[in-house]
């Protein structure tokens, strides 16, 4: 078949690529298997040779083990000392190549979710190693799992957690996480105990408490598995956040139940007091974890405020502080996962305002990279650990477990939804419930917890438990994972909307938010919006000022996205040949004259005039940017796919803009030398967004040419032959010209009409930045005294 395809020429060649990939993978697997025994075999040898060499050196001294002189070893083999890092690297490499491989096989990956394929690979590798060495390395070591593999995934999830929908559905999520998990644990544990009592099942040695412990291990929905499967099915955001949020928050419950039952299994009995203490312990674990995480998050945000001079280590702070949060929580037996989520979510808004664009990209990429690799490794190790065992297959127990898990999940979800719907604005439909129930996947966390079980105390039970856990995990990942996609499509669940969110929607929804808050205030009801508003205001007034450096703390989201939009436009116009020539150093060539004539003809209707150079296609692009940039502020979720970063639309052009800007700044300096009464501060501490703001929209440059009643939009200026960056220069020149005309006074523009009041106020900000220190002029000072907001 290979040759027949090759006969088709190009097409055949392309088709043979997957086969090549498979070959490559197979080779690597074999390599993996063979290196490890090689390592074991060579270590004793290498022990001798250097020993011989050394002892030979001491031959003249007291003892000489060997008399004959060996030739100096030109090429030696010393596998032992690099064994561990080497093997780790091999595993990581295997994981990464697997990921590559799956994308070369699109047909397979559309049917089978990646997680299943990875487990299969793990099984193969494990089987291969077992064949070669008769012994499989214990790869799913609990320490390795909980301290190395799990944190990146959780941090990635927490850092990019869509806060708003999460908070809006927090009640529902908590219900599912806490009550649902408790229900599952007790239901499964209790019924399993009943099953164990069946006389012929040879399970009677399993007591109630071990059964409950097992129930608590198996009942927790696993975030890794959920993430892996759900992101391929592109379900709507509400369901995604519900199941995912549940999987994150049930960690606290799992931790408490696990420790509780483990303690009591040794003690043998449970009293009411213990139960009560358990409840308290849960609160402590959950809230404590969140507090620890939030604390570290604030410290990280504060640190990032001062990293202006050493940008390169900014990402490091983010990662290390988060990891510290996780470890600190683990020290106190608090919920590390919740700490990590809280840390990431808390630090993100402040850190992102403080750090450079590049650091932001670095953090994004590193988090995605680590979490991808981690996830892949986890699934592979799951496969390997399955091969390793220890196993004890007990038909009754295993089947009972699987069935009970399914049943309890369904009952739990249905029952909880019934209660929850009474409190929700937007009810959960039957389809939603089905997806939530079906999406309750178990994964590696359950397996690791099972592994953690003390071998002493659970002598005969541990193997049975582990086998059952593995079976459930396999069942959920394979069966449920594979069938959820067709089922979703069958039920026609509302997929995430690729909707266009227009600027109108943005404005109006923000308006409606304010309206609703106001009405709530009038009614005297502290509703949802009121607390949100209060928190926002507190945030803006105190917290942001403290944690964010400089002027950046004042920028609302709407403006930040608008800057990006303008930036994109600027790039497009520049690329389309709108003018990439930089003005020469002489100010005379760059003057208002080039711009003013554009405004002489009466401005036609805005629909034609406003976007002169943008075709329909470009307009669509702008809208796309609008939408994608507003997702942070608005209700509508962007269903994030972990393997594809949110595209930064202006990233490509950014480099060019930066370069041009640097050139412009040099020109700035030259001009300043010429006109040294210009004491404009050079905005050294601008965030990228602020400098972009200065770049693309400068009121001075515009207001000078403002005709009465006309609307000189930004696009008009960009249509001019100068590059958008030259606006910066124009700014300087404009001031220079103004100064020549009217001494040291900065006059507000001569424009008139009803917009004047608004413009003056809009001026104030810019004037703060650009005002000549010596004499602002009376006009400007007037504006200072007027309060803008009534």
């Amino acid at each position, binding site marked *: 078949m290979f040759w027949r395809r090759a006969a088709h020429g190009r097409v055949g060649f392309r088709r043979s690529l997957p086969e090549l990939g498979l070959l490559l993978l197979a080779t690597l697997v074999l390599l993996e298997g063979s290196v490890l025994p090689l390592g074991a075999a060579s270590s004793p040898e290498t022990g001798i040779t250097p020993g011989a060499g050394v002892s030979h050196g001491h031959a003249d001294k007291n003892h000489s083990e060997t008399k004959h002189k060996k030739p100096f070893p030109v090429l030696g083999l010393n596998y032992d000392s690099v064994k561990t890092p080497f093997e780790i690297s091999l595993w990581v490499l295997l994981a990464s190549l697997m990921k590559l491989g799956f994308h070369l096989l699109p047909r397979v990956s559309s049917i089978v979710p990646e997680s299943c394929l990875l487990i299969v690979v793990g099984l193969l590798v494990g089987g291969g190693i077992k064949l070669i060495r008769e012994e499989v390395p214990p790869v799913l070591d609990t320490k390795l799992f909980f301290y190395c593999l799990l944190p990146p995934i959780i941090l990635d999830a927490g850092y990019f957690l869509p806060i708003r929908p999460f908070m809006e559905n927090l009640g529902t999520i908590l219900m599912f996480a806490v009550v649902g998990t408790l229900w599952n644990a007790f239901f499964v544990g209790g019924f399993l105990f009943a099953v164990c009592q069946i006389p012929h099942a040879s399970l009677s040695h399993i007591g109630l408490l071990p059964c409950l412990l097992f129930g608590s291990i198996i009942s927790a929905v696993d975030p890794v598995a959920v993430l892996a499967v759900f992101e391929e099915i592109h379900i709507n955001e509400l369901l995604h956040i519900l199941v995912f949020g549940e999987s994150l928050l049930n960690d606290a419950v799992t931790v408490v139940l696990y420790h509780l039952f483990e303690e009591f299994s040794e003690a043998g009995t449970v009293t009411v007091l213990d139960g009560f203490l358990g409840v308290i312990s849960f609160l402590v674990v959950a809230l404590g974890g969140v507090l620890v995480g939030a604390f570290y998050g604030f410290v990280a945000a504060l640190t990032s405020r001062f990293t202006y001079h050493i940008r390169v280590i900014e990402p490091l702070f983010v990662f290390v502080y988060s990891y510290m949060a996780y470890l600190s929580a683990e020290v106190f037996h608090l919920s590390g996962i919740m700490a990590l989520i809280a840390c990431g979510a808390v630090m993100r808004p402040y850190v992102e305002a403080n750090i450079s664009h590049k650091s932001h990209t670095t953090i994004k990429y590193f988090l995605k990279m680590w979490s991808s690799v981690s996830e892949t490794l986890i699934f592979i190790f799951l496969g390997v650990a399955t091969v390793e065992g220890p196993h004890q297959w007990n038909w009754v127990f295993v089947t009972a477990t699987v069935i009970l898990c399914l049943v309890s999940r369904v009952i739990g979800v249905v029952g909880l939804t019934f209660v929850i719907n009474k409190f929700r604005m937007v009810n959960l439909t039957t389809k939603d419930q089905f997806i939530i129930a079906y999406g309750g996947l178990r994964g590696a966390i359950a397996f690791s917890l099972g592994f953690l079980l003390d071998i002493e105390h659970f002598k005969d039970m541990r193997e049975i438990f582990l086998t059952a856990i593995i079976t459930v995990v396999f069942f959920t990942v394979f069966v449920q994972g594979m069938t959820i996609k067709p089922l979703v499509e069958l039920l026609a669940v509302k997929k995430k909307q690729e909707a266009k969110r*227009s600027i109108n929607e943005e404005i109006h929804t923000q308006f409606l938010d304010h309206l609703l808050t106001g009405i709530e205030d*009038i009614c*005297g009801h502290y509703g949802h919006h009121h607390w949100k508003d209060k928190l926002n205001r507190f945030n803006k007034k105190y917290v942001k000022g403290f944690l964010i450096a400089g002027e950046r703390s004042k920028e609302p989201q709407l403006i930040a996205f*608008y800057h990006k939009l303008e930036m994109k436009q600027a790039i497009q116009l520049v690329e389309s040949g709108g003018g990439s020539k930089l003005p020469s150093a002489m100010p005379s060539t760059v003057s208002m004259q080039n711009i003013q004539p554009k405004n002489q003809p009466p401005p036609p209707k805005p*629909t034609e005039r*406003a976007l002169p150079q943008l075709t329909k296609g470009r307009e669509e692009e702008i809208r796309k940017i609008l939408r994608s940039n507003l997702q942070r502020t608005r209700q509508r979720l962007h269903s994030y796919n972990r393997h594809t970063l949110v595209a930064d639309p202006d990233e490509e052009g950014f480099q060019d803009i930066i370069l041009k800007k640097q050139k412009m700044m040099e020109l700035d300096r030259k001009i300043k030398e010429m006109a040294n009464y210009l004491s404009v501060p050079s905005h050294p501490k601008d965030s990228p967004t602020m400098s972009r703001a200065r770049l693309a929209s400068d009121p001075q440059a515009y*207001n000078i040419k403002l005709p009465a009643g006309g609307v000189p939009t930004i696009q008009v200026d960009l249509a001019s032959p100068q590059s958008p960056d030259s606006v910066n220069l124009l700014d300087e020149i404009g001031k220079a010209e103004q100064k020549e005309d009217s001494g040291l006074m900065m006059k507000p523009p001569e424009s008139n009409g009803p917009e004047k009041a608004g413009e003056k106020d809009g001026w104030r900000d810019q004037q703060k930045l650009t005002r000549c220190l010596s004499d602002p002029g009376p006009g400007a000072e007037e504006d200072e005294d007027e309060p803008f907001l009534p």
Partner: protein
Amino acid sequence: MGSSSSSLNNVPDGQQLMQETGFSAAHLLRLYERFKFLDKDNRGHLRSEDFEAVPELSENPIGDRIVGAFFLPGQETVDFSSFVRVLAHFRPTEKNRTRAGAQPEPANSRNRKLKFAFRLYDRDRDGKISRTELLQVLREMLGMQVTEEQLQSIADRAIQEADLDKDDAISFDEFRKSLEKVNIDHKMSIRFLE
């Protein structure tokens, strides 16, 4: 709750308001108590100063618009019926309601909610949101953080998007169309008013 029916008699036009707005007796009572609380001088009607006494409202960027919505055009005071009628817009929409054709559209229908919001924009009540009106709203919401140019551009683009008949203003139908994908019931309902 036992005394609610007797207290309802104290509420002016209680029964009629219940029918008209769909509020339950308990809710109406609660709103009446709130009304009396706001009416500090016990006049039986509210003036704009009474509204401004609500502290959070002064921080609200569109606070004065909201207050203005309670007052019928030309009137300086708000009596309880007007108060309740405005708040009736914010009840969650009932689903699966079949109403006889003769009944007027309930205040909390989607259309009425949108119309209420529209009137907040369209202060001069000419049926359109002109560019100036939109600019005013934007200025109020975005405050000092935006330059005038940016405001103009945002307003431009908004009108450009929504304006279908090219009259440089947004009519109610255009407004409604631009919000067709937004869950208005969710955005304009207060849960406790159910």
